[in-house]
C-alpha cells in the first residue's frame, strides 16, 4: 500500500462484501490509509447499516448471498439514498458496466483490482460535488482553470492546451490532492473500457505536463508510481 498518495481528509466507507479475503484486503488498506471502513456480509445488513448511519461512499459487491448487488443498489436508490456507490464484480462483460451504472451505481470496478485503483476511485467518489455546487473556477497553486471560458492560466500566463489536454487537466484539478489512475482517465477522458497496450495516457499526461509544469518553477502534476497521477500544490 506504500504507493498511496496521502489524501487530505478521512473518508468513511461502507463495504458490502461476503468474501472474507476481499473484505479484509479492503478494510486493511483503508485502515492504513487512515480512513474508516464498516463491513456487512449481506445486502440486507448493508442496507440496514446505510439507513442508520451516513457514509461517504458505499462499496457494493455484485455477487452477494441474499440478492444480486444490482438489485441492492436499486433498492438503495429507491429509498432516496444518494450516497455514491462503487460496484465490485468478478464479472467483466462489457455490458455489466452499463447495467451497473443504470442501476444507480456511480462507478464499477472489476476484480481483481489493485487497492490503489480502488482507493483512488473511492476518494474521487467521496469528494465528488453535485452539479450545482461545482465551482466555475478551479485553482491549484498558481494554476487557474476557468470553466466558463475554458481557459487555463498559470502565474498569469495563458496556456495553450488541446481540448483533450484541457479535459485531463480539469479532471485532475477536480480531484486535486487525490490520485487519479490511468484507468480512470481512460474511462473518463476517452471513454475506453479496454486497456490499450501502448502508454496512451502517459503520453498525453506528459504532453500536458510539458505545457503546465516545465516552463514554471514548480511541478504540480506528479506521477505516483504504480497508481496514477495527482495534481497538487504540496508534495
Amino acid at each position: 500500500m506504500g504507493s498511496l498518495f496521502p489524501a487530505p481528509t478521512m473518508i468513511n466507507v461502507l463495504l458490502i462484501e461476503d468474501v472474507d479475503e476481499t473484505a479484509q484486503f479492503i478494510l486493511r488498506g483503508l485502515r492504513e490509509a487512515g480512513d474508516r471502513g464498516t463491513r456487512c456480509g449481506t445486502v440486507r445488513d448493508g442496507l440496514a447499516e446505510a439507513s442508520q448511519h451516513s457514509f461517504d461512499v458505499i462499496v457494493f459487491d455484485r455477487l452477494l448471498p441474499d440478492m444480486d448487488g444490482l438489485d441492492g443498489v436499486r433498492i438503495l436508490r429507491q429509498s432516496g439514498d444518494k450516497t455514491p456507490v462503487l460496484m465490485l464484480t468478478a464479472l467483466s462483460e462489457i455490458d455489466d458496466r452499463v447495467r451497473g451504472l443504470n442501476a444507480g451505481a456511480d462507478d464499477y470496478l472489476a476484480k481483481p483490482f489493485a487497492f490503489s485503483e480502488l482507493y483512488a476511485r473511492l476518494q474521487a467518489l467521496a469528494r465528488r460535488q453535485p452539479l450545482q455546487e461545482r465551482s466555475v473556477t478551479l485553482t491549484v497553486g498558481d494554476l487557474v482553470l476557468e470553466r466558463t471560458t475554458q481557459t487555463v492560466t498559470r502565474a498569469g500566463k495563458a496556456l495553450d492546451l488541446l481540448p483533450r489536454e484541457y479535459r485531463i487537466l480539469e479532471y485532475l484539478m477536480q480531484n486535486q490532492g487525490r490520485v487519479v489512475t490511468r484507468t480512470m482517465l481512460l474511462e473518463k477522458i476517452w471513454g475506453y473500457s479496454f486497456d490499450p497496450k501502448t502508454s496512451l495516457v502517459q503520453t498525453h499526461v506528459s504532453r500536458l505536463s510539458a505545457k503546465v509544469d516545465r516552463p514554471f518553477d514548480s511541478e504540480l502534476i506528479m506521477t505516483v508510481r504504480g497508481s496514477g497521477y495527482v495534481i497538487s500544490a504540496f508534495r
Partner: protein
Amino acid sequence: MFRRAIAASAGFLVVALGILWASTSLGLFLLDREARSAIENELAWQKSLLASGGMAAVESDLTVDGQAVWESDWVYGLLDEGEFVHAVVDRRGELRAGFGGLSANRGWSYVFLEHEINRPLLAHRSALDQTHDIVIARFRVDEEFVLRELRWVGSAFLFLIVLPLSLVTGYVLSRGVFVRLSSISETAETVAQGEVGQRVPLSKRRDEFDRLSMAMNRMLDRLEALHRSIKDVSVGIAHDLRTPVSTLGGRLQLLEHDAEEAALVRKHVTIANENVATILRTFDALLRLGEVEAGRRRAAFRRVDLSELVLDVCETFEPVLADAGIELIAHIADGVRLRGDGELLTQLLTNLLDNVVEHARGSERAWVTLSADDRSARLTVRDDGVGVPVELRGLIFERFFRLDASRETPGNGLGLSLVKAICELHDGEIRIAPSSVGTTLETLLPRASG
C-alpha cells in the same frame, strides 16, 4: 425397424380382411333378408288367396297355360326374374300345384331342385291349410355368388399378393431409412469419439434426410470451429501464460531471497505486479474476443460516425506515435457513417495503431486512410517499417500468433484476432494488402443504407 414394418403389414392385412369379410357378410345378409321377406310376402299372399277363394284360388294362381302342375322347362324362366317356385303338396306328399321337383323341410332351408339347374334356392315350407303344405322358393341371386366369390378371391389376393408385397415394400423402405439414419448416427458417433472433421455424406436426392444431414453438418462445422478455437486457446494459453507465470514464480523466489532488503523487495513486488497485470490483460482480451465472436454485441448496434471516430483515435495516437519516432499522417473522408458498435470500432483502430507502435520496427511514418463508396467504408493503416514476411501473412490474425517468436515484446498476440473478430461482427473483412514496403492492413466495412 423391421419389426415395425412387419407389424404394420400384419395390421394392414388384418384390417383389410376384416373389411372384406364384414362388407361381404353385410351384403349377403341384406340379400338374404330381402329374399326371406319376399318369400314371406308371397306366403301371405297365398294365404289370403286361400282365405278368400279356398284352394281353388291358390291353384288358379299357380296355373300356367291351363296347368296347375308345372313343366320342367318353365323353371328356366324363373331364374332371371327372381320369381318364386311354388309347390303345394298334400299329406301324402302328392303335388297339387307348382313344381314337383321342389321339396323342402318345414321352415327355412336351402335346397336344390330336381332339375338340371344347379343353382340353390332359398325355400320356406309351411302349412297352407289343414291338409296341405306350401313350399315357396326363390333362386339365390347372382349378387350372392359374386359376393362370395369376392370374399374368397379377395382374401386370397390379400394373403398371396398384398401381404408379401407390403412386407417387401416395408423392408425396402425401412432399410432405406435405416441406412440413411445410420449414416447420420455413425457420423455423430465418429465426431463424439473426437474426429471433429467428419461430416454426414449427402445423397443427390435433396430429400428430408439430406436436409437433416445438411443441418447436422452445419452444426458440426460450428462444433469444429469451437473445438478448434478451444484448442487454439488452450495451446495459446499454455504458451503465452506460461511465460509470465513462470517469470512471476521466479520473481517471487527472488523476493524470498531478498526478503531482508526493503528496496529490493519493493522492486520485486512492482515487477511481479506487472507480470500479474500482463496475465490479466491476456485473460481480458480473450474474454472480449469470445464475447465479440459470440455475436452478442450486434444487438447494440447503432449509427456510428466513422469519420469522427477515426479522427479522434488519430488525435489520441498522434503523440504516442510521435514518441516512438513515427509521424502519423491521416486522410479521413468526411461523413462516413455506418451501423455498428462505436466502442468496438474504436478498439479496432486502437489495436491496429498499437500494432504499428509495438511492431513496426524501423518505421518513420504511418498512414491512416478512411475512404468510402456507396457500399462500404475502407479503413487502411499502413506503415513503412520492416513488414511481415510473405509466408506468415496468412497467420497474423490467428490467436496468440506472434511475429516475434521470442515473445520479448509486450503483447499477447490477441490484438489482431480481436480486430478480425470485430470486422466480422460488422459483416466486414480485413486483409493484409500486398506492399513492397512495410505493412498495409486494409479493413472493409459495409455501410448502413441511409
